[in-house]
């Protein structure tokens, strides 16, 4: 997420000085993305350089002469409109450690994919529990807009974690089905542990929770 677009969007509503931009940005995003004032000023300077923002005229004449307010140029205003009307690009997915780990686990000798899935699901569910607990504990304030912003941001984390859990369920089901119809896979012949038929891979988990699985 770029602060750049956030600043443009805020300045499209009204002229603001740097500190005001910082406060509004944080409030309006539910306090989830703290920014320091330095980041704000650096970004504003770039926007000035790119011709999207100008110091607001007549600003230096009032009693708070040290605070400079900023305003959007016509080009800046156009950018704000474009941002709202254009979807955020999904882009190429970032290299995801989990996807890589599971891809490798499928063929790694001596590794039971189901154990990897189970351990990960425990972790993802724990994160999901935590986000949900934050939602449940969300205090109601006078600022309805900020409350809604905060809960929408939490929902984003919730849906994201849920998608991972669902994907893990799917992986587990696919792996289980594949192991019913085993295909010959390359295995190091010098590994005695990988030898016998129905070896470690077919092993089922017992009822015990995995290490690190928590109980109250």
């Amino acid at each position, binding site marked *: *997420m770029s602060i750049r677009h956030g600043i443009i969007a805020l300045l499209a509503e009204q002229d603001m000085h740097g500190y005001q931009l910082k406060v509004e940005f944080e409030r309006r995003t539910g*306090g*989830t*993305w*703290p920014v320091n004032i330095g980041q704000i000023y650096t970004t504003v300077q770039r926007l000035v350089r790119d011709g999207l923002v100008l110091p607001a005229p007549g600003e230096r004449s009032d009693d708070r002469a040290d605070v400079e307010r900023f305003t959007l140029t016509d080009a800046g205003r156009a950018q704000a409109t474009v941002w709202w009307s254009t979807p955020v690009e999904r882009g190429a997915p970032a290299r995801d*450690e989990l996807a890589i780990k599971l891809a490798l686990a499928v063929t790694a000798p001596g590794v039971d994919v189901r154990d990897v899935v*189970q351990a990960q*699901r*425990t972790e*993802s*569910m*724990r*994160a*999901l*529990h*935590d*986000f*949900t*607990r*934050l939602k*449940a*504990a969300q205090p109601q304030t006078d600022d309805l807009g900020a409350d809604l912003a905060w809960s929408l941001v939490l929902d984003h*984390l*919730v*849906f*994201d*974690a*849920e998608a991972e*859990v*669902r994907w893990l*369920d799917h992986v587990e*089901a696919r792996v289980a089905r594949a192991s019913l119809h085993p295909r010959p896979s390359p295995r190091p012949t010098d590994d005695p542990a990988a030898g016998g038929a129905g070896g470690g891979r077919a092993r*089922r*988990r017992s*009822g015990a*929770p*995995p290490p690190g*699985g*928590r*109980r*109250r």
Partner: protein
Amino acid sequence: MIAAPDSPGLVGPVVLSMKMAHRTHGEGATAVHALRGVDLEVRLGELVAVMGPSGSGKSTLLNLAGGLDTPTQGTVTLAGAELSAMDPRARARVRRRSVGYVFQDFNLIPALTAAENVSLPRELDGVGTRPAREEALVAMAEIGIEDLADRFPDELSGGQQQRIAIARALVGPRRMVLADEPTGALDSAAGEDVMRVLRARVDRGAGGLLVTHEPRFAAWADRTVFLRDGMVVDTTGGASGPESLLAGGGRHRGDR
């Protein structure tokens, strides 16, 4: 930045306890092992979610927990009574006194108002009409839906009907609610309202067992139990430290 909320309310005595519960349908070569040695405990103030693929034994587990069915091996103890050792009539009495059900399709009686639906279990308990209504209004007020008391089911949204079903499940002395996919017919926001109410109600002193296939809703529970082929293969949830909360900067926070 973001403070960790306190862990959910105090947890009380055990309401439901299953020990090495098995349920086998049929015999010999055609026997179906619906449950194979499940241990489970639910305390007052605790909501436990049950997840697992279809056919893994979730409904069987709920039926055993509520005394609608008995284990072929092992024990089920509900509100201090060992259901597995009782004759059907005694079991039905415990069931009526101690548990309420919430189903996917709400199951409210269309000809009765919301308050009448909620008071019905108490009238069947033999409590008079007026005290039953009083209790129903208390149960509804506890989850903030007393304003719906005189509406009929067809005047209510699915989420509202389901909240009434939760009030009905826990009216009077009932301390255990069994919910089978209670959010299954609801959209995401209504489903969340229902989970909030279920959570709040359990926090006020009830045990809850919730079958769901939506991780998002299971996350409202204190624990999630995963069933596979009639066995518990994993349990997640429970208390977690503040390090795992938003402020901690876990994997999900990498975009900060």
